[in-house]
Each structure stands twice: as structure tokens, then as C-alpha cells.
């Protein structure tokens, strides 16, 4: 206690402390001894009250000093310890002075606090999502590998085929391991639980390539030969209660019994969060069919090997593949066009999140700059008002350093206050931000305010304090005694020019942000206005995994079940139509294959690459996909397939340009079957609203034979105006029809469409908030400066009006002054925006980064706001009474 007391006593103002320190410590020592004599409780209570008393005394003595030092004590204040005391005194002074102008303190702490806090919240996300290294050993050596074939009709980038994997794995001079992996949803079954769960079937090499170890059990080996499973930490806890006896037990996954050989650590969730298990597979070169593209690879570069070196080796290796594995002429052609694609794994996993986050952090930093400009202005106006005060103090013998220190103390105090507001705001805003963020951002659930947020907030506060505080501190230091006599015109003019520059800067920054939001808004409108070829309202969708129901032995059995269940769904109140589709648009990717139109020579296995989907029931009518020619499938074709297909308009154009496709036939080399076109439907955007339409071939739900294709759990689509609320009824129905079948992937098409826009709408929302804030701050800044100038020039305006100037001309003078500043800001801002809107890149859709309309509209809007902000002070100026003005001045 005595030590604490000695420490606390140092907080007392120096003169008071000098006079009473010993006595105070003496009294505390005695009281403490007495209190301890009365027991532990009494001692604690005493300690608390003594500490409180000292703190209170330290504060009170600063606010209302009782002990006024004489000359000798002031002159003694020089030593190192005293400097600290001087600071304490200055902070005390600053606190008092801020208490006298609470509006100023609130404005500064509010403006800086909110903008720093917003930055802190976004930074926390950026830090936890982007800056945390991937949880693999030496993640910078990991690369993601795909294929490209410029000049072919394949997508810009696509997964490789297994022969690439086998041969790349032999490139040990550039790679320290190559692995393939995938991700899908399939049924996992334990004694008491059956669920559709996210799984991955990687190559055995995945774990060693990534450099991860299990926390329990072992990694898979080639000897396991597709019988082993590794559980994720989450699944181990959730499904098996963290039981270590799980090792060696068998679990049914994807219809096969798998032996659990290991459990991975909680950090390892690859390729996506929430994965339940990895079912490693062994790829044998003798079983590889060349040209089955679609597999992504991850590889570990050897130290000192660059991505470029690895790509050269891969390109050279790919050229040898037709010789090693054979394949069709088309395959050989594709290999000639092939260029390997390799980029850091980190970019692949986080790139799509990184861009919006960087844009947002950039936008909020701009807001902070605008806020700093505003606060600087506030400081300047305040310094202006205090010029007299400073002059008096200078005249009374205060040194420049002392005045600067007093001002600095105020700046520091406000920075600390802003920091507190910022942390509070970040803490409040982060949950809101996270709940609005798009799903699937890796690591988003681990985002939390932490020491990094604190450090970043501190850094921003310090920077803001330096930016805003420098000028007023210098100004305080430069105070002269001379101004006591009268005001110097020139100085006022120079200072208001400085403030003009600040307002121009704010205008420019606000314009940059508004243009950014404008472009995002236009993209959002464009994207919302895209016609995907199907409707997104009033459609409910779900899947049920019926493959384990009794009697589900072949495709026909599945078809019969689904037909029956569709009938039951149709009987629900409010249901208009029901259909089935294997891959729901916007939800699941579709497979694609080459089809050869009739009339082309059989020896060429060319033909366009078409996407495939399998439909049943009233799929087209339910989704509102328009029938252009012919007919859609009949109910009989859903149950027994005579080899009919429906194709999309784009597919028809690719297969038979300018000809009538009805009744024509197309050859499907993979299945070695001929299919007859019975109908043509409208094109749809299958994968993403941003992409182009896919040429589609629709097959009926069942193949020609019981096993020709295996569509166990297609997505149901239900057209009903009760799409948002029908889920419980459907669930009840499903439980009755298929008691052990889990229902999953329950959506409305509206949700899927909204999710598709989410990354953009999220960015747009924050950008809009940021630019709105910048605009308000900028407007306040302009208004403040003009008001101040009007107040400063009251006398001058009074004289002018006394000499016959009209109110209108005075108004014009003030508005013109404001408009000049704003126009300069607009020009600078527009030029800056031209340079930086490029960073929005992939976020934009259907609008150019230098869209003239957006630039013009935003500039005009800012101009109008500028005129408005100038008009109010101008009105005040023109209503100045010359007599009053002259008398007051």
C-alpha cells in the first residue's frame, strides 16, 4: 500500500506535492497500519478509499488548485521527474480547456473516433482473414495448379486431368509434393446419424504436400488403397464426441465403409471450412483415362524454385502426355494449346475476398483523411480564436515551447479520447459487419477484436494526431505578443487559404469515394437487372438423400420415388408446379462434354463443348424457362428414356448454325449414344449472374437403362407464392415419404440470387456508407470554413454594404468563394478517381471503371452540395447590418 501511495502521490501537482508529500505519506502509513490491525476486510476498504482519495485529490488539485506555488518553486521545476509533472499539468490544463468547449471535444473525438473505429473493424477482418498465414507449413511455397488452352472453346481456366497429376508428381526437381483434391457433398452414416456432409477425396499426398500432421492417429498411405478416412477436428467432436477410440472404427461414407485412421487439428479445414472428412484415394497410372479434365492440384515448390520455372517444366511435361497416355485427336490438339496455370495457393483461396476488403479498407482510410482534414480545420478555427489568449500568455512570460506543449497536450488528449471512441465503435461495428459479410469467407468465424486491432487503432490515432495537430501546435509555438494591439489582415487571409486547401482536399476525396460507390451501384443495378433466363421469385428448392431408402436399387426406382413425391408436393396448398433438376442454377456446377452434331464425319471427335443437366417433372415451367421450339419432356420420358434431349438456344446455334434443330441428332461420345432433339428452350445463366450463358443439353431424369446414369438426389424446385414459409410442410412430407432420408440444401431461388450478388452488395453497402460519411464531413467542412470567413469578414462586408454594395452581390461573393474551392476539389478528385477506380476491377459489372455518366453525375452532385453549403453563410453575410457590423468590430 505504501508503495502504491508513493506512486500515486507523484500524480499530484508538483507544488502541492512538494508542500505535503511527506505528511500525506506519513498519514497513509499510519492509517494503513491501523486498518490492517482491524482485519483484512478493513484493510482492503481502507486501501480502496485511500487510492480513491489520492486520485480525486490529484484531479481536484489540478482543476481547482488550493496550493499556489511561489516564485522559488516554479523556477525549480526543471529536472527529469519534473518534466513528467509538467506534462501532467499540461494535460490537466488541456482537460479543463476541453471541458469548457465540450462541442469541440465531441466533434473531434466523434469524427476521428468513428472513422478510426470503422477502419479498425475492417482492419480486424483484413488482418484475421488475409494477413494470417495459411495454417500450413511454409505456405508461401504452395501453389495452385490448373490448366488453360487459349484458342480452344474451353473455359479460360479449367482443372487438369489425372494424367497431369501423375506426371507432375514426377517433377521432383521443381516440386516437393503434388496433390489433387476436390470437394463435394455426400451421405455420411453412423449408428445414430445420417447426414449429407461436405467431404473431399484428395490424393494420399495432400497432407504431406501441405505439411500438416494429424493430432490423432496417422496420415494415409498408398497401402490404404482407398479404404481410409481422416476426420476433421470439428466432425470428430461433433459426430463422435471427441472419442479417441474412433481410430480403427468404420464409418459409412459415400456408400462405402471407411476406416478412420486419423483426426486432423482444428486449424486444418481444407479445401473449405466445415469439411467433415477426407477420403484419400490412390491414383494408378494404368487406370487413368486421358482428357477427363476438372481436377485442381496443389503443389509445394522446392526452395529456390519460382512459379515461372515450375510452369515451364509443367508445360514441357504436358506435351509428352498424348504419347504416354494416348487419347483422341481432339485431346492431342488440346494438349498443343495447353498452358499450365499456377499461382500462389493463398491467392487462390483468399483472392476473391482480398479485393473487396482492400477496396473497403482503402475507402475507409480515405474517410479518415477527410475526417482529419475536418478536424484540422476545427483546430485551426480554435487556434484562431485563441490567438489572443496565446498572445496574452506570451506577454506574461510563457515560452514558445510551453505554449506548444499546452496545445500538444490538448491534441494528445483528444487523440486518446478518439482512440477510446474508436475501439468502442469497432467493437460495436464488427459483429454487424460480420453478419452482413458474404458466406464462405475463409476464417471469418475467427475474426475478433484483438491486440492487432488495438495496435492498428493506436497507429491511426497517432497518425491522425500528427496530421491534425501539427499545424495548431506550430501555430501555438509561433504566437507573437504583437497581435495584442490589433489584427493583422494578411495573416487571416493566409490562414483561410490553408483552410480552403483543406476543403478542396475533402471535396476531392469525397468525390473519389462517391465515384467508387456510383460505379458499384451501377454494377449492382446492371447485375440485378440481368435476366438469368429463369425466374428467381416464388421458387423453393431442396434435396433429399433417398439412396438409402429400401428399394432404391436402380435409376427407375429413383425416378418412381421422385415422381410420387412430386405428386405429393403438388397437393400442398399454394403449390403451382414442381420439377426436378440435377444441378440447380447458381447452386451447383454442371458437367460438360463434347457432342458431335449429326452430319459431321465420325472420325473427328470434335463438336462443341456443351453443359449437361438432368431434369424431371415440370422443371422448365416451374423455373419459368421459356420453350422456344418443339416440346419439353413428357411424364413418360421422365420414367423411361427413349433418347430424347432438350437443348438451349445457344447450344442449337453451336450445333446447327442457322438450321432447324428439331428432330436432329447429336452424338455423345462418352456414352456412345445418339440423342434426338425434341425441343429448344431459352438460355440460362447456370453458374453465376456475371458469366455468359452456358450452352445446355437437358436429359430426362433416367438413362436408357436402369444404370445409365445415377441421379440419386436431384434438387426439387417448387413454384409457390409461399416459397419463404413452405419448408416445414415439405419437411414433414419428406419424413413420411422417406423416413431415413436427410433433407438438405434448402433454399429459395431468391436467396441464391441474393447470395450471388452478396459480395458486390456488401462492398457497395460499406462503400456507400463510407462515401456518405465523406460527403457529410466534406459539406460540414465547407460550411464551417465559409461561415468562419463570413464571421471574420463581417467588418469588411459591413463596410462594403455601407458603401452601397447590394446583398445579392455580397451573397455572390461568398458563394463564388465556396464554389471556387469546390471546383478545384472536383477537378483534383476526378483526376484522382480516374486513376484509382481501376482497383475496383472485377467488382464492376457492365460498367466501365471510367464511366462518364457516373463521373459527371457525381461531380454535379458535389457541386450542388458545395453551392448549398456556401449559400447558408452567404445569406448570413448579406443580412449583415452595416451599422451593427462596424460598431461590433
Amino acid at each position, binding site marked *: 500500500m505504501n508503495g502504491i501511495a508513493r506512486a500515486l502521490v507523484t500524480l499530484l501537482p508538483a507544488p502541492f506535492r512538494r508542500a505535503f508529500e511527506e505528511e500525506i505519506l*506519513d498519514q497513509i502509513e499510519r492509517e494503513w497500519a491501523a486498518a490492517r490491525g482491524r482485519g483484512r476486510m478493513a484493510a482492503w476498504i481502507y486501501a480502496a478509499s485511500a487510492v480513491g*482519495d489520492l486520485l480525486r485529490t490529484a484531479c481536484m488539485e489540478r482543476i481547482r488548485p488550493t496550493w499556489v506555488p511561489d516564485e522559488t518553486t516554479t523556477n525549480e521545476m526543471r529536472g527529469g521527474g519534473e518534466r513528467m509533472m509538467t506534462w501532467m499539468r499540461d494535460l490537466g490544463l488541456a482537460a479543463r480547456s476541453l471541458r469548457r468547449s465540450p462541442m469541440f471535444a465531441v466533434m473531434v473525438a466523434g469524427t476521428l473516433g468513428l472513422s478510426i473505429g470503422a477502419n479498425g473493424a475492417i482492419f480486424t477482418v483484413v488482418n484475421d482473414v488475409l494477413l494470417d498465414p495459411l495454417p500450413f507449413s511454409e505456405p508461401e511455397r504452395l501453389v495452385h495448379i490448373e490448366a488453360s488452352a487459349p484458342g480452344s472453346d474451353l473455359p479460360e481456366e479449367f482443372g487438369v486431368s489425372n494424367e497431369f497429376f501423375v506426371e507432375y508428381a514426377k517433377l521432383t526437381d521443381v516440386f516437393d509434393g503434388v496433390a489433387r483434391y476436390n470437394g463435394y457433398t455426400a451421405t455420411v452414416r453412423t449408428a445414430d446419424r445420417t447426414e449429407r456432409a461436405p467431404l473431399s477425396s484428395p490424393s494420399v499426398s495432400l497432407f504431406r504436400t501441405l505439411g500438416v500432421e494429424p493430432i490423432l492417429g496417422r496420415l494415409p498411405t498408398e497401402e490404404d488403397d482407398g479404404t481410409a478416412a481422416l476426420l476433421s477436428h470439428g466432425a470428430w467432436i461433433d459426430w463422435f464426441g471427441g472419442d479417441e477410440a474412433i481410430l480403427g472404427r468404420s464409418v459409412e461414407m459415400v456408400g462405402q465403409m471407411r476406416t478412420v485412421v486419423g483426426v486432423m487439428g482444428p486449424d486444418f479445414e481444407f479445401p473449405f471450412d466445415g469439411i467433415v472428412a477426407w477420403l484419400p484415394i490412390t491414383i494408378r497410372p494404368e487406370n487413368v483415362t486421358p482428357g477427363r479434365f476438372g481436377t485442381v492440384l496443389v503443389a509445394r515448390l522446392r526452395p529456390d524454385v519460382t512459379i515461372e520455372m515450375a510452369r515451364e517444366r509443367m508445360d514441357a511435361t504436358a506435351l509428352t502426355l498424348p504419347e504416354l497416355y494416348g487419347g483422341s485427336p481432339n485431346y492431342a490438339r488440346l494438349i498443343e494449346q495447353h498452358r499450365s496455370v499456377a499461382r500462389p495457393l493463398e491467392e487462390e483461396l483468399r483472392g476473391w475476398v482480398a479485393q473487396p476488403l482492400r477496396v473497403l479498407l482503402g475507402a475507409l482510410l480515405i474517410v479518415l483523411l477527410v475526417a482529419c482534414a475536418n478536424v484540422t480545420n476545427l483546430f485551426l478555427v480554435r487556434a484562431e480564436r485563441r490567438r489572443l489568449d496565446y498572445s496574452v500568455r506570451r506577454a506574461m512570460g510563457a515560452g514558445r515551447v510551453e505554449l506548444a506543449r499546452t496545445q500538444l497536450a490538448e491534441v494528445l488528449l483528444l487523440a486518446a479520447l478518439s482512440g477510446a471512441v474508436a475501439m468502442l465503435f469497432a467493437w460495436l461495428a464488427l459483429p454487424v459487419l460480420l453478419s452482413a459479410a458474404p458466406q464462405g469467407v475463409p476464417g471469418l468465424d475467427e475474426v475478433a477484436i484483438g491486440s492487432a486491432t488495438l495496435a492498428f487503432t493506436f497507429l491511426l490515432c497517432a497518425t491522425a494526431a500528427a496530421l491534425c495537430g501539427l499545424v495548431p501546435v506550430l501555430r501555438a509555438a509561433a504566437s507573437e505578443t504583437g497581435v495584442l494591439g490589433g489584427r493583422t489582415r494578411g495573416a487571416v487571409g493566409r490562414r483561410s487559404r490553408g483552410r480552403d486547401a483543406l476543403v478542396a482536399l475533402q471535396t476531392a476525396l469525397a468525390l473519389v469515394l462517391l465515384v467508387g460507390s456510383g460505379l458499384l451501384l451501377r454494377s449492382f443495378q446492371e447485375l440485378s437487372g440481368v435476366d438469368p433466363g429463369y425466374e428467381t421469385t416464388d421458387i423453393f428448392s431442396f434435396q433429399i438423400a433417398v439412396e438409402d431408402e429400401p428399394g432404391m436399387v436402380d435409376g427407375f426406382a429413383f425416378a418412381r420415388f421422385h415422381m410420387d413425391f412430386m405428386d405429393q408436393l403438388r397437393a400442398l396448398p399454394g403449390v403451382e408446379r414442381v420439377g426436378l433438376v440435377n444441378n440447380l442454377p447458381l447452386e451447383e456446377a454442371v458437367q460438360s462434354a463434347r457432342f458431335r452434331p449429326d452430319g459431321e464425319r465420325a472420325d473427328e471427335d470434335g463438336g462443341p463443348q456443351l453443359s449437361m443437366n438432368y431434369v424431371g417433372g415440370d422443371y422448365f415451367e416451374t423455373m419459368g424457362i421459356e420453350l422456344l421450339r418443339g416440346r419439353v419432356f413428357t411424364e413418360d420420358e421422365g420414367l423411361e428414356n427413349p433418347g430424347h434431349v432438350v437443348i438451349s438456344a445457344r447450344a442449337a446455334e453451336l450445333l446447327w448454325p442457322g438450321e432447324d434443330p428439331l428432330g436432329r441428332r447429336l452424338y455423345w461420345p462418352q456414352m456412345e449414344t445418339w440423342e434426338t432433339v425434341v425441343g429448344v428452350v431459352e438460355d440460362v445463366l447456370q453458374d453465376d449472374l456475371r458469366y455468359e450463358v452456358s450452352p445446355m443439353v437437358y436429359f430426362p431424369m433416367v438413362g436408357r437403362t436402369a444404370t445409365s446414369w445415377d441421379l440419386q438426389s436431384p434438387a426439387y424446385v417448387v413454384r409457390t407464392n409461399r416459397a419463404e414459409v413452405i419448408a416445414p410442410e415439405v419437411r414433414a412430407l419428406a419424413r413420411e415419404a422417406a423416413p431415413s432420408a436427410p433433407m438438405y440444401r434448402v433454399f429459395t431461388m431468391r436467396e441464391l440470387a441474393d447470395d450471388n450478388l452478396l459480395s458486390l452488395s456488401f462492398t457497395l453497402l460499406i462503400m456507400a456508407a463510407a462515401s456518405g460519411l465523406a460527403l457529410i464531413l466534406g459539406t460540414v467542412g465547407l460550411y464551417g470554413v465559409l461561415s468562419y470567413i463570413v464571421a471574420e469578414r463581417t467588418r469588411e462586408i459591413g463596410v462594403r454594404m455601407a458603401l452601397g454594395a447590394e446583398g445579392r452581390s455580397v451573397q455572390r461573393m461568398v458563394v463564388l468563394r465556396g464554389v471556387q474551392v469546390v471546383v478545384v476539389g472536383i477537378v483534383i478528385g476526378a483526376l484522382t478517381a480516374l486513376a484509382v477506380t481501376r482497383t475496383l476491377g472485377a467488382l464492376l459489372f457492365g460498367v466501365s471503371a471510367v464511366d462518364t455518366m457516373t463521373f459527371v453525375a457525381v461531380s454535379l452532385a458535389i457541386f450542388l452540395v458545395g453551392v448549398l453549403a456556401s449559400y447558408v453563410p452567404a445569406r448570413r453575410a448579406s443580412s449583415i447590418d452595416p451599422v451593427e457590423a462596424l460598431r461590433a468590430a
Partner: protein
Amino acid sequence: MTEASMSNLDYHVLLAMAEGPRYGYAIRNAVEDESSGTLSPRAGTLYRVIARLMGVGFVREAEASTEESHPGRPRKYYALTPDGRIALAREAERLRGAAALAEERLGRLTSRP
């Protein structure tokens, strides 16, 4: 400082010095005893009062009287100034008046049937 603005604590601190110079802890103890335990000022508060009373000229630092010296380090003693004595006397007068008024009124109240 006028008598009207003199707080209860001010009064008791002055009162503690009325018999002669006292040092801080002794003042604190006297205040506690003489206020029947209702006042028990902690160190900071006590010395702010002493500082203020010194500032208005009611209290001064004094030489220690030899008979009251205590073992340990040398202490500062505080004593009343003539102004302090007058102020204390006036305050006592005012309090007596106020007390008498209270007794009179309470007496009237209690003597009612």
C-alpha cells in the same frame, strides 16, 4: 473565504489547531474524535483543506512545540493565525446560534401536547 463558505471539515480542522500547533496526523485524529467519528478525512483531502486554509491566511506552518514532539522524522506543524482564530470564533458563534435555533424549535415541537 467567508464563514458562510466554511465547510464542516474546515471548521474541525481549525478547531483541532485551536489548542496550539499540531502536525497532520494529530489533526486528522482530533478531527475524527471531535466530530464524533463523522469526519475521518483521508490524507489528500485533509491536506487540500489545510492548503486552502493556508491560502486564505487562516493557518500557517509553525515551529514544533518541544513537549509534543514524536519519535521519527521531523514533522511540519500547523497553527492558527489571528485571522484563523477570528474565523473559527465566528463560525462557532454562527453554529451556536444555529444550534440554539434548532433546540428552540425542536423544544417547541416536543413540548406540544
